[in-house]
């Protein structure tokens, strides 16, 4: 009789499919995955420790560098929590500009996530299409904020620079281009037989497991959980936002949720552009003492900042809970279990859009 041997299969820390270093140790029987364990510490920088006791002007830039892919939302949530403590209200135009930049950031992050997934399942053509489309989004981000990645656009009371009318026209044209191109790519994704084989029914995340591990963002929304912090944010409410939810709970659903959210983002930017009136983009204010727990919706899910400030505007205590933490945990301890083949390990892992840099901070 053939004997099945249990082996421990390490993946990483350097792996052609991973953007970032982390190590998954899988216990396998043949190709069947029995359990998985994640080993971190490759990008631990101790940002929360550095932040403690520093003035907000410094912490603002540190917060942005928690994660380079979704830097705008860290900026956004940190500034909004400081504003909430001190009772500063951003001007109306600034609030809309924040939404526009945040949605552009979400679009590029989702496109990048879907790029890595397509690359992992070896559909390189589609991956390159998506990466090229992402450059269009990056151009718009650069046009508005002045930098591609770490732009520090949002400041207490408003934003740093205004959107010129001709820039708004460029932005609208780019949005139309993205919509047209992306609907073509989504059709390729939906109908491709190879993609369906490697995505549908693979990496199932049940609703119970998702709730128990507090999964957030597209990973949770693909399992039918209605959890989107944008639906409680006042500016998004004014724009008539409602979250996208799917029920299939597999790799395919997670990628499709991200695609649909890109379309939703273009819609939100259009309505923000239409609703925006001329006005000042910067108000003033002083930072006061207080403490707060504030949530925002990052591209990967719910982002939580818990901070205490003092009267001099210093950050005394801070704790950041990034969306990748629950998502990677549920991915490694629920989705990877029962994977039928070792080749699915990387694709399942990438489908939850892991971002190690913000997991470890």
């Amino acid at each position, binding site marked *: 009789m053939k004997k099945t041997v249990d082996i421990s299969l390490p993946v990483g*820390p*350097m*792996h*052609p499919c991973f*953007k*970032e*270093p982390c190590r998954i140790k899988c216990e396998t029987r043949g190709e069947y995955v029995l359990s998985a364990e994640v080993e971190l*510490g*490759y*990008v*631990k*920088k*101790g*940002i929360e*420790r*550095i932040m*403690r006791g520093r003035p907000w002007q410094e912490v603002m*830039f*540190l917060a942005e*560098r*928690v*994660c*380079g*892919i979704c*830097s705008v939302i860290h900026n956004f949530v940190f500034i909004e929590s400081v504003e909430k403590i001190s009772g500063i209200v951003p001007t109306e135009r600034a609030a809309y500009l924040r939404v526009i930049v945040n949605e552009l950031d979400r679009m590029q992050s989702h496109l*990048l996530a879907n*790029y890595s997934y397509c690359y992992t399942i070896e559909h390189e053509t589609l991956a*390159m299409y998506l*990466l*090229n489309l*992402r*450059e269009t989004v*990056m151009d718009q981000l650069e046009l508005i904020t002045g930098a*591609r*990645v*770490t732009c520090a656009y949002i400041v207490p009371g408003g934003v740093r620079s205004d959107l010129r009318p001709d820039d708004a026209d460029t932005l609208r044209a780019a949005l139309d281009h993205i919509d047209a191109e992306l609907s073509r790519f989504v059709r390729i994704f939906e109908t491709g037989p190879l993609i369906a084989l490697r995505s549908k029914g693979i990496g199932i995340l049940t609703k119970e497991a998702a709730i128990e591990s507090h999964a957030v963002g597209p990973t949770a929304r693909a399992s039918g959980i209605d959890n989107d912090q944008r639906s409680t944010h006042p500016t998004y409410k004014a724009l008539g936002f409602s979250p996208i939810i799917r029920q299939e709970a597999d790799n395919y659903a997670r990628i499709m949720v991200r695609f649909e959210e890109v379309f939703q983002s273009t819609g939100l930017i259009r309505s923000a552009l239409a609703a925006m009136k001329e006005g000042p983009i910067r108000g003033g204010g002083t930072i006061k003492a207080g403490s707060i727990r504030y949530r925002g919706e990052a591209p990967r899910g719910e982002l939580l900042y818990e901070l205490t400030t003092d009267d001099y505007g210093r950050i005394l205590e801070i704790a950041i809970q990034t969306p990748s933490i629950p998502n990677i945990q549920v991915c490694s301890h629920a989705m990877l279990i029962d994977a039928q083949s070792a080749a699915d390990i990387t694709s399942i892992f990438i489908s939850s859009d892991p*971002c190690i*840099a*913000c997991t470890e901070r």
Partner: protein
Amino acid sequence: MSLLQNLKNAVRSRSIHVAYVNVGSCNGCDIEILACLSPRYDIEQYGIYVHNNPREADVLLITGAFSPQWEDKLKPLWDKIPHPKVAVAIGNCPISGCVFNRPETLVDPPVSKHIPIAAEIPGCPPRPTEIISTILSLAPIIFKDYEETKK
């Protein structure tokens, strides 16, 4: 100069294999390397291939300040890369530690303490074009006449 060396020079300048390693960055520099892959910048038209496999790489791109887990891992990784090889530090992080080099931090920059760095691209993050032009200008200098100068 021998004919063989000329041939090798010509071949090497059109075929550069790249691996990148993140030793504790914020991902900002990593996605700028990824952006180089996109058809907009099209790194492959210069004959640069990103494999992310150290055993067949010529150029190692390093991003990030140096986090403690890498202490015993970066050196073996560098040793695995076949000669001729070169390491390029991307971003402020491997050069100075960027914003992370403060009291209480866990990182241990600069990376040049641990492995030899041939070129540094400052910027937080540098633009994809800067990354490509650095690789392109560096590679011929390092790889030219490698066998002859080695002796």
